[in-house]
């Protein structure tokens, strides 16, 4: 009986504490001892689980490195960084719930973005409502930055830029007076349609003609109808965007059907592991990427882009995909903003974020009014001799752009 009373007393006390803590949690940052916590809802299960893991490893590696280097110094005191993770199960509704939970229950006032534009879009209204800054590294959709969000910052290049480099490269190959003919096969989802809009805008500006404009349904598992069109119309450039599935299908079916196209540009080659899986069939393909280990950027924390890649590989046993690199950069952006803000007040940190002017191993970071990073261009790889080599932009290129792709009969 007495025991029961004691237990009840403890329960009431805990509840009271919880309420108090909950209320105070929304007002100031979650700092325990000398650790300041960031919150992240990441796809650890579900269809984005692979990329969710890449994202988390990027975050973790940056936190580890920053803490090892003495943490962040705010108002004369050193703090370590910590991250509270939840699994959003790759579903936007869950992501939104978890954003509420991180802010309301856990008292986190700094959020690291989830994986994918869809989940970022689900969480951004929540962080905005509570005035909690979110630095995200994996939501590239241009539409995220047309809502007038004040607390959303993205370190990556937005979607419409993904394959504009391919159009620029194609234009360089055109002979005088030649009207280049471009074929598009883009998945009918927000990401790929943004990519498509960017490609079409640039192609039209440069006087190219769009001869195929197929929108692939998200559940498509065969592209032979589109490939038949490519065979008949012989475009100078074929642009495909459909996440890893689209990249894998395109490479496979172009090779199997022996379709000769002088130039092929894709997104998500590395996610689809086109080199590992298709070997010489993937040769000459151009792949859009946010980052590459061969780029010449560097910072004091990780060193050069190559140093980051080596550290990542030594830690996790695989070469870092750009998702990990940009995620690590997002943590660096927060650390930098904390130090410049001189406090953990969300509004002050937000203003510091907006004024970010940082060079990292991942590239320059400088946010525009809408929260987009305008200091870093997209890069294009080309698969050459079984390796990704940067061929665009030309000032950071590792190798010259090989063009045109030889015909299958000559390979």
């Amino acid at each position, binding site marked *: 009986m007495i025991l029961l009373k004691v237990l009840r007393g403890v329960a009431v006390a805990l509840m009271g504490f919880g309420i108090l803590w909950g209320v105070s949690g929304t007002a100031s940052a979650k700092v325990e001892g000398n650790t300041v916590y960031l919150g992240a809802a990441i796809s650890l*299960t*579900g*269809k*984005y*689980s*692979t990329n969710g893991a890449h994202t988390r490893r990027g975050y973790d590696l940056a936190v580890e490195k920053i803490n090892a280097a003495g943490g962040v110094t705010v108002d004369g005191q050193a703090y370590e960084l910590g991250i509270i993770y939840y699994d959003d199960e790759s579903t936007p509704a869950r992501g939104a719930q978890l954003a509420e939970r991180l802010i309301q229950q856990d008292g986190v006032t700094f959020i690291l973005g989830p994986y994918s534009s869809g989940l970022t879009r689900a969480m951004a209204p929540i962080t905005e409502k509570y005035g909690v800054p979110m630095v995200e590294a994996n939501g590239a959709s241009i539409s995220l930055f047309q809502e007038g969000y004040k607390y959303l910052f993205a370190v990556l290049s937005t979607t419409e830029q993904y394959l504009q480099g391919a159009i620029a490269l194609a234009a360089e190959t055109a002979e005088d007076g030649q009207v280049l003919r471009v074929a598009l*096969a883009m998945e*009918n989802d927000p990401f790929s349609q943004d990519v498509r809009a960017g490609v079409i805008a640039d192609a039209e500006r440069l006087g190219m003609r769009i001869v195929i*404009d*197929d*929108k*692939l*349904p998200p*559940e*498509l*598992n*065969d*592209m*032979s*109808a*589109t490939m*038949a*069109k490519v*065979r*008949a*119309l012989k475009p100078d450039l074929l642009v495909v965007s459909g996440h*890893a*599935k689209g*990249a*894998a*299908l395109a490479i*496979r079916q172009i*090779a*199997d*059907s*022996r*379709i000769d196209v002088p130039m092929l540009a894709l997104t998500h080659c590395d*996610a*689809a*592991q086109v080199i590992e*899986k*298709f*070997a010489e069939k993937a040769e000459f393909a151009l792949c859009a990427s946010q980052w590459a280990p061969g780029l010449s950027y560097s910072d004091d924390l990780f060193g050069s882009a190559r140093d980051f890649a080596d550290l990542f590989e030594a830690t996790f046993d695989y070469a870092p995909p750009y998702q990990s690199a940009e995620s690590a950069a997002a943590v660096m952006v927060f650390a930098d903003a904390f130090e410049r803000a001189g406090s953990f007040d969300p509004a002050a940190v937000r203003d510091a974020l907006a004024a970010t002017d940082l060079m990292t191993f991942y590239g320059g970071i400088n946010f525009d009014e809408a929260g987009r990073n305008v200091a870093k261009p997209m890069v294009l790889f080309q698969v050459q001799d079984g390796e990704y080599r940067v061929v665009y932009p030309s000032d950071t290129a590792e190798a010259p752009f090989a063009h045109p792709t030889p015909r299958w009969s000559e390979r």
Partner: protein
Amino acid sequence: MLENLQLLFDYPALGADLIANGLMIGAIFALAAFGMALVWGVLGIINIAQGELVMLGGFVALTAAGLGVPPLMTIPLAALVLFMIGWGLYRLVIFRVVDRDLFVSLLATFGLSIILQQLSNEVFGADVRTLETGLGTLILFDSQIVLAEIKLVSFVTALVVGLALWAFLKRARLGQAIRATSQNARAARILGIDTDRVYAATYALNAALCGAAGSLVVMAWTIHPYIGLPYTVRSFLVVIVAGLGNIAAVIAAGLGLGALENVAGFVLGAEYQIAFVFSLMVIILVVRNLLLRRKREYLK
């Protein structure tokens, strides 16, 4: 759309190429549809998890190939492994919903499909995977028609399996028991057929067929844990066109659907390919219903 038609008109060989490639994927639909027709006819269950069984077959083939099994040998292997998985699924779940309301079995197999998706996601990862066979490409008629040899393999496999299945149902003792059970389960039981075993065998056989289809899908196309739905929808469509008891009709409907879909994807644009499939399904259901109604009135 008009320019696409014009294109077909200008390059007649293109139509042949489209149809040939469509027939190849149609063969896969037919394989999955054999099983669906069997399960539907014998157990009275519409197996929503059909596509997930195809997907599992693909992952089994991938895993086997990773262990050094030659790619083409993964076809029978995937069928065998899926046979056992199918048997297990029957003993765990399916036997509970045989003879129950259709709605219950729909829900149960729908649940099963989600579980299989998520489990595969956990076990095999969410990546898009594919298996290289090392087979080449067939170039016919002065490169008017280009076909990957693996697609041809899947086409032939579907035909051979269809034939074998037909012979099995006609001749083999278990095949006859399956047919008897599908005609009248109660009478079959009275005559000493262990219908529970027949059900288990039927569901396992279905899974084996899907397994073979899946191993072909991973070699000719790509696979990932969420790829099942298109195969479920297509096999459903094929079965409602072909009916439950006619293997030749299933093959014809499967191949026809594949070819038609590919041509439609070309003419209407890829974005309408799936819309076309669903519209076709609605039209066929409506037409069938009208025909049936007329027949019923005639019988009255």
